[in-house]
């Protein structure tokens, strides 16, 4: 007898209604980030929504991708790749948005962000695996088997009575 459970990492957050984002919304986000001092005044930016909401993992993913992180806190991360500067900014309960200056090619920026998200998801899986292995015993779960296929990890635990 069994129960099937689907879960989603708390380090991931799907942007609600991202497809309905209007130009007004974009300008509002840009202004908010400007007010916070995350973006430079006098420059124009465009934004790309992401699913990432953990600033530590975002910084790691950026570093793995060859970017240099120049500023970072819980709500914003600034990084540089070559002569391209990117600013990631989030509000309390939302995932990060990436801001690029308007002269940066949109296709290149979107490809970079997509690759970054893939790297971020790899890190999420790795961190979750370590957390699970380290804490399973406390919950009476003993690892029986582990299989890795592609990027998926399948684990079977025996429940201690």
């Amino acid at each position, binding site marked *: 007898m069994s*129960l099937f459970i689907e879960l989603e990492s708390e380090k991931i957050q799907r942007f609600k209604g991202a497809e309905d984002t209007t130009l007004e919304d974009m300008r509002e986000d840009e202004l908010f980030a400007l007010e916070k001092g995350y973006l430079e005044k006098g420059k124009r930016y465009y934004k790309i929504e992401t699913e990432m909401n953990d600033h530590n993992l975002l910084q790691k993913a950026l570093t793995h991708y060859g970017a240099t992180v120049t500023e970072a806190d819980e709500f914003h991360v600034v990084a540089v790749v070559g002569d391209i500067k990117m600013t990631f900014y989030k509000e309390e309960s939302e995932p990060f948005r990436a801001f690029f200056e308007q002269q940066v090619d949109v296709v290149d920026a979107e490809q970079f962000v997509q690759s970054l998200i893939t790297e971020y998801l790899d890190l999420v899986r790795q961190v979750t695996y370590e957390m699970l292995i380290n804490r399973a015993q406390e919950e009476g779960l003993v690892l029986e088997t582990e299989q890795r296929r592609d990027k998926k990890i399948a684990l079977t635990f025996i429940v201690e009575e």
Partner: protein
Amino acid sequence: MTKRVEIVLGDDGKFYAKTIGMDDERCLDYVEVLEKLLGARSIHSEYTEEYLRARQKLTQRKQLQQKLERKGE
């Protein structure tokens, strides 16, 4: 039957788990346990067909037993 929990860590930030050999509502406790262990929120859960079939058999067996008891009175 040995009780087991199978967990799959996906490549998209999603995780899938299945409890095996738990013949009562205790398997529901694992929703919370897994949320804690995986740092995740559950977005969907359902009993498997195997569980539902077993529950149905159990209910039928109870009903039959009650009928037989009533006949015997």
